[in-house]
């Protein structure tokens, strides 16, 4: 297969029912096995891009396309995109009282298996325990209600746990690093790295505000988003430049266009 894992072309999107585009022509290619960091100031459209890739119903795509493994996914429902191999680690995961992590994840795993091929409770429990150990999670965690009353760090870890169990082809991590102390950040980063090691074809789009996580997850490419477009792309050194110089030089460059 020669087509990129993810190929976004001229993508424009807005909040359903509102004027004013948030994404104003995004182009981005991500190959299998690559880790791309997507940086940029607040309000530049990073999180919107993540949600549009996952199929959030609150956004309307007005132009462009998103090809995943060569197939246009814009007409697919969020669950179809998930089963196709796209995973979004939410910036703000929903709280679902009354539904345990174990019960939820087992339903999610079985939703991608055929009828009669569902994983039994014990097989699933083994997988879950193994992934939880990797993320240094307490075994009792699986019985807790999904994100209900979780700390910020627990929510983020829970997102990576779900990614580890569901084994997507593409992980879009929307500010998974924000709000984490350094220990939690290291655990999350090493979890992502181990997923990459276990699956060499795994593609990761790492959306972040800060360079900090890039000290632990080394990106192949860094993109900077400004005002709804990719304003600059480069190697890992681009993140160093942003860290040193901020976004001002890019603001000026974008304004000059």
């Amino acid at each position: 297969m020669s087509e990129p894992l993810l190929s976004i072309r001229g993508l424009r999107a807005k909040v359903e029912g509102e004027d004013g585009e948030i994404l104003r022509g995004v182009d981005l290619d991500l190959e299998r096995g690559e880790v791309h960091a997507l940086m940029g100031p607040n309000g530049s459209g990073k999180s919107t891009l993540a949600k549009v890739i996952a199929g959030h119903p609150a956004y309307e795509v007005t132009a462009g396309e998103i090809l995943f493994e060569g197939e246009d996914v814009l007409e697919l429902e969020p669950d179809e995109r998930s089963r196709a191999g796209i995973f979004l680690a939410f910036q703000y995961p929903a709280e679902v009282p009354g539904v345990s992590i174990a019960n939820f994840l087992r339903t999610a795993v079985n939703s991608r298996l055929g009828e009669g091929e569902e994983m039994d409770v014990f097989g699933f429990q083994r997988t879950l325990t193994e992934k939880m150990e990797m993320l240094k999670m307490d075994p009792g965690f699986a019985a807790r209600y999904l994100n209900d009353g979780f700390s910020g760090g627990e929510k983020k870890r829970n997102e990576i746990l779900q990614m580890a169990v569901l084994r997507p082809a593409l992980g879009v991590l929307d500010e998974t690093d924000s709000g984490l102390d350094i220990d939690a950040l290291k655990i999350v980063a090493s979890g992502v790295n181990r997923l990459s090691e276990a699956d060499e074809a795994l593609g990761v789009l790492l959306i972040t505000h800060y360079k900090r996580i890039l000290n632990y997850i080394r990106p192949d490419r860094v993109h900077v988003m400004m005002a709804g477009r990719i304003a600059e792309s480069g190697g890992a050194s681009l993140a160093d430049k942003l860290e040193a110089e901020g976004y001002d030089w890019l603001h000026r460059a974008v304004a000059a266009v």
Partner: protein
Amino acid sequence: MTAGPAESTLAAADFDTLSGGLTEPEAIAVARAAAWARFTSLPWPTKKSEEWRYTDLTKIGFEALTPVVPAPATAEALSADVREVLGRSGERAGVVVLREGRVAHLELEPEVARSGVVLSSIRDAADRHPEVLRRALLEAQPGPAEEKLWALHLALLGGGYFLYVPRGVEMPAPIHAFHVVERAGTLSSAHSFVYGESGARAAVIDEFFSDDLDAETVSLHGATITGEGGAGIDYVALQRFGRGVKRFSTQHVVAGRDSRVVTFNVALGGDLSRADVTSRLDGPGSDSEMLALWFGDSDQHFDHHTLQHHAAPHAHSDLLFKGALTDAGSSVFRGLIRVDKGAQLTDAYQTNRNLLLSERSHASALPNLEIEADDVRCSHGATIGQVEDGQLFYLMSRGLTRRQAERLLVFGFFDEVLGRLPMEGVRARVREAIEEKIGL
């Protein structure tokens, strides 16, 4: 198996045909005859009555139904479907199977029987404990709007079981009763009688079921649950009738001093299912927890009507009823907290929450207070809402279809109530029945 020679429609029935020429204990014969006279003299309540505004009794063809004549208990082997459920239901102290009200099987663990616990048909109880039976039935006097159905229930009385737990005896496990309806077009009735003396502990699960029936069929049910001082009683009614069945259950709790009674109604099946649940806080320090869950699809209709009657001071009652509806399912909750003048320091709560999964589903919620004492803490509230978009998207983004996500959210919505069921084995049974119904 037929009920005897005297089958006729309700319209053509008189008291003799309803007795089928059987001899029966006098306590029952007298009560039934009075109830029949009362039934025939009362008009059917119509939608003009507040209590029946959302559930139209006049649309039910009562007159054409065949009343099932009360018949003596038989001793049949357990059927395969009952054995199957029992195999998955954890420990129990006894089993009762009722077929259209007639006791067809009854067993009690010998050790429990030796501790003095009585489990028998109501008929046998009328011979041996007529006074207890009479008092409980007299106390269970429902409101005027319920009287017609209650009279019909009593007129057909004869079916049902009697559980008596003597002073200080704690039953080690629940009694599991199965109310089976098999004959389409019938009108049958059964009664669950549960009595705990001072300090007794008892638990009962009544499970109602039938196949889908091809003619309108009505199942009446009454429960009288009494806890004397310091008693603890847990009562669960799990209704999973097939289509075609219309079900009316009238449940009456009397909670004595420092007793604690939990009732839990689960409505899943039938075309129409109504439960009228009254808890009378009769002694100081008594505690009543009233719980219910329902899930309606297709054009099912569920009606829950409750009264928390605080007749004594220092008592506590807490009601939590939750329902979810899809397709053209509908439901009504009407609840009242009534606090008598002398019932100071009452602590009473009433909450009804409804979750609508479809445009065509409809829920009505009518919570109410009637307080005559002046030093009380009471609150009531009701909500009708939809699934949250944020939760739905989150679950779907993990591969769950919209339907799976919605059903999982219903389960989450129910969990708060299920978690309050005290007995692990019964909780597992109820959870399983709900899973089966909502099809996760």
